[in-house]
């Protein structure tokens, strides 16, 4: 390998991603969907760029916030209605549940 070729190879591997390109790759990166070359370039950029490190962190925090965002609680009357449907369904198919017995 001559010197020139090695330099070109290094430049290709390290690449020169812009912040905009790095930001666009974050979800692919977190999903493990980057190729080896892309991953190297991604890491090389991150190693040098505080702003993009912060952006990645912000995305991680956003995801873990979303992951723990609880759904609205179901109102009691909806639950009660579902419960009635369940017992009806049980009675209809010949299964008598305890609760259905008690109500009669």
């Amino acid at each position, binding site marked *: 390998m001559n010197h020139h070729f090695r330099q070109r190879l290094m430049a290709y591997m390290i690449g020169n991603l812009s912040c*905009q390109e790095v930001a666009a790759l974050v979800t692919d990166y977190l999903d493990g969907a980057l190729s080896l070359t892309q991953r190297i370039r991604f890491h090389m950029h991150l190693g040098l760029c505080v702003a993009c490190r912060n952006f990645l962190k912000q995305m991680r925090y956003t995801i873990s916030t*979303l992951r723990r965002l609880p759904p609205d609680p179901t109102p009691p009357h909806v639950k009660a209605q579902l419960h009635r449907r369940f017992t009806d*369904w049980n009675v209809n198919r010949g299964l008598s*549940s305890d609760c259905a017995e008690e109500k009669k």
Partner: protein
Amino acid sequence: MGGLLCTNHLDSSPGERDNRCIPCIWLSLIQPRAGPFLPSMPSPFSTSDFDDVTVIKGLQQGNEHIFEYVVNRYSGSLLRVALAFVPSRAVAEEVVQETWLGVFEGIGRFEGRSSFQTWLFRILSNRAKTRGVRESRYEPMGLGTAGEREDGPSLDDSLFVTEGSRAGHWKVPPADWEPDTPERALLSKECRETIEAAIAALPLTQRQVITLRDLEGMSSEDICNILDISETNQRVLLHRARTKVRQSLNHYLAQEKHLPS
């Protein structure tokens, strides 16, 4: 010149990876999935009382306690997912009711080839799609829907310098969020509402993907099956949705800083 070796590699004990540390960088190239920035995301439901087998058996046998558990565990999620498929809350509530009827009809034949959650959401999405077609408001999946560009940068161009020698750089570099940001965000009602509003404002397809993936924690494979889209397309939609939610969160945090505490 600091940062070539992190504390773990200076005293050679394994631990958190640091992306400024060269051995850590190499490690994360070999094992990308355990890389330095992968979030550990505890599921809010990881401490579920019943596993899928118990749930399915219980429902088939008509066990009330199991049904109560299933209702408590899934009905909020079902409504949230339904809202990502149909435009109004009233229709979404009806779709959820139909889904429960679908559960009663289908549980006897359910063999557990997918997880119970996936099965449930598949029934929901099928009902929601027929519903949407009937009301002719449902937008077909995958293809670029109105107002949604399928290619081009997903991040708002306004975040980056577009011209000159600094093209592609951040206009305003993202701030370093405090480590307790998710906890604080979840504690504040206002912030939760900000996030929910940001999700509600997303185009339908993006909303479906982020709801199933991040809010409900489904695997991307299952999501692709349910929504009938490719993995790549799914990630594009997810990335757009996440960046928009991040932006609203960022906005909220910036405002919060200016308020007297």
